[in-house]
């Protein structure tokens, strides 16, 4: 039964998660201690184990409450196996277009070799981009909602193709009735009045890259000449955000995210998150760098420090929220009551079966991170998907088929982690990157705590 629950304490709050139902219970210290022994059938053992530590009548009362939860299937809920709703084969509904395999920055932690992905620097032609739209429409079959992400390198270096593809997307939407959500990830160097206006008119969600404090950003994200870029990009990001004020933007529909990366050189990353918020941005994300054999990357030895920093970030997040100056932090956002279905939790990011990346030359890969890793090439826009086995292998590489994930308490929240990172560290997409797992678990605990606190404080405020 122990493998059906996860309990933790953070900042004096005790949480009990029932893994297979998703129920989150805020509990007192006594219940927390009881759960070391309680398995649903051994009340006397619990009483014996905690005899003298808590009054018997309190323990008896708490046991009744635990049995009540079990009756409601919110404690020790039965294991979940592959549901019938998880289709055997995936339907491709999302594409990432490598609009420019070239970049005007030289970020120190870039996984794409300065934008080139180990290949010749090149940009995608409008023709290739349009073929990708047709590919998406054909492959997505009955799916109404599709997605296309304009990525790089730096996609704004190739506005000609961005515009041609977008125009074609709108044309094909009208012809087919599909909705293709557009996203663009940019470093901000080329954001100007003209393209901001155009991106807004075309309902682009934007992911804007900023690493927080000026000194941190400038050290990690220099331009080609080695100069800091903070002042230039923040000016452009502010202009972009200002242009979207009052419009129909939020964090789920058409969104504008600021995202950063922390490294071994910025393990006090709470300061970076707060710095972004202080600069006027309030939809934020900050994620750990993933690098192998690099002085900027993380090892297991860094985990205690990283965990401590997430505790700090949680406190800072709650403090600002309580002061009426709350901001949105991507990893703390979790809908505990209306989250995704089990089928979605198994399909995860969808790389290789629901989500493909299109390299600038039209080659297909499981996702943008696999571009240039030749053994993962799936085919091309001209040939179609020629790999017979890879899409199915990715489809079946879900948490219930991965030994390390199957028994992990976080399996239905992280969905097995990033395949590309697993491949980077182990050459095997079914063997998760352990340091990433530990960071993910800590972030999930923080998210669950934050959501529980927000709910309880709201109830208290409403009396």
């Amino acid at each position, binding site marked *: 039964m122990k493998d059906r629950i996860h309990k933790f304490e953070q900042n004096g709050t005790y949480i009990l998660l*029932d893994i*297979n*139902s*998703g*129920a*989150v*219970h*805020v*509990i*007192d210290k*006594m219940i927390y201690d009881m759960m070391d022994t309680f398995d649903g059938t051994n009340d006397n053992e619990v009483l014996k184990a905690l005899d003298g530590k808590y009054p018997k009548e309190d323990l008896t*009362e*708490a046991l009744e*409450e635990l049995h*009540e939860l079990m009756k409601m299937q919110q404690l020790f*809920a039965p294991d*979940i196996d592959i*549901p*019938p*709703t*998880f*289709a055997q084969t995936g339907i491709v*509904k*999302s594409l990432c277009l490598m609009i420019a395999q070239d970049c005007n920055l030289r970020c120190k932690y870039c996984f794409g070799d300065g934008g080139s992905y180990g290949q010749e620097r090149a940009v995608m032609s409008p023709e290739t981009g349009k073929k990708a739209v047709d590919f998406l429409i054909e492959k997505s079959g009955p*799916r109404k*909602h599709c*997605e296309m*992400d304009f990525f790089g390198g730096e996609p704004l270096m190739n506005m000609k193709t961005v515009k041609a593809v977008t125009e074609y997307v709108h044309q094909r939407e009208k012809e087919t009735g599909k909705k293709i959500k557009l996203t663009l990830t940019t470093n901000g160097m080329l954001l100007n009045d003209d393209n901001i206006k155009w991106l807004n008119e075309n309902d682009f969600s934007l992911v804007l890259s900023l690493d927080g404090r000026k000194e941190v950003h400038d050290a990690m994200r220099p331009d080609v000449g080695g100069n800091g870029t903070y002042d230039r990009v923040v000016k452009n990001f502010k202009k972009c955000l200002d242009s979207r004020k009052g419009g129909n933007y939020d964090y789920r529909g058409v969104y504008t995210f600021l*995202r950063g*990366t922390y490294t071994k050189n910025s393990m006090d990353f709470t300061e970076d998150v707060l710095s972004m918020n202080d600069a006027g941005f309030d939809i934020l*994300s900050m*994620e750990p760098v*993933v690098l192998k054999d690099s002085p900027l990357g993380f090892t297991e030895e860094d985990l205690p420090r990283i965990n401590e920093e997430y505790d700090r970030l949680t406190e800072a997040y709650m403090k600002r929220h309580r002061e009426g100056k709350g901001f949105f932090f*991507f*990893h703390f956002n979790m*809908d*505990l*009551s*209306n*989250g*995704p*279905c089990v*089928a*979605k939790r198994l399909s*995860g*990011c*969808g790389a290789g079966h*629901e989500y493909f990346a299109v390299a600038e030359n039209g080659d297909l890969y499981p996702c*943008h*991170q696999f571009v240039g890793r030749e053994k993962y090439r799936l085919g091309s826009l001209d040939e179609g998907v020629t790999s017979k086995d890879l899409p199915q292998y990715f489809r079946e590489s879900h948490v219930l088929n991965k030994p390390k994930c199957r028994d992990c308490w976080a399996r*239905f*929240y992280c*969905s097995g*982690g*990033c395949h*590309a990172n697993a491949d980077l560290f182990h050459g095997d997409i079914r063997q998760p990157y352990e340091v990433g797992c530990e960071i993910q678990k800590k972030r*999930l605990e923080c998210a669950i705590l934050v*959501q529980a606190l927000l*709910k*309880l404080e709201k109830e208290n405020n409403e009396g």
Partner: protein
Amino acid sequence: MKHIKTVNKPTLQASVGKGGCGECQASCQSACKTSCTVGNQVCEK
């Protein structure tokens, strides 16, 4: 309850038999995009 406060109405078990429509957003899990993890997604239905 005196010792336990449940903060959500969980739907995970109920979604075993339904869902899977695939209309929800893709959720890249890598560090380079801000859409990591499925836990913080919502159902589109």
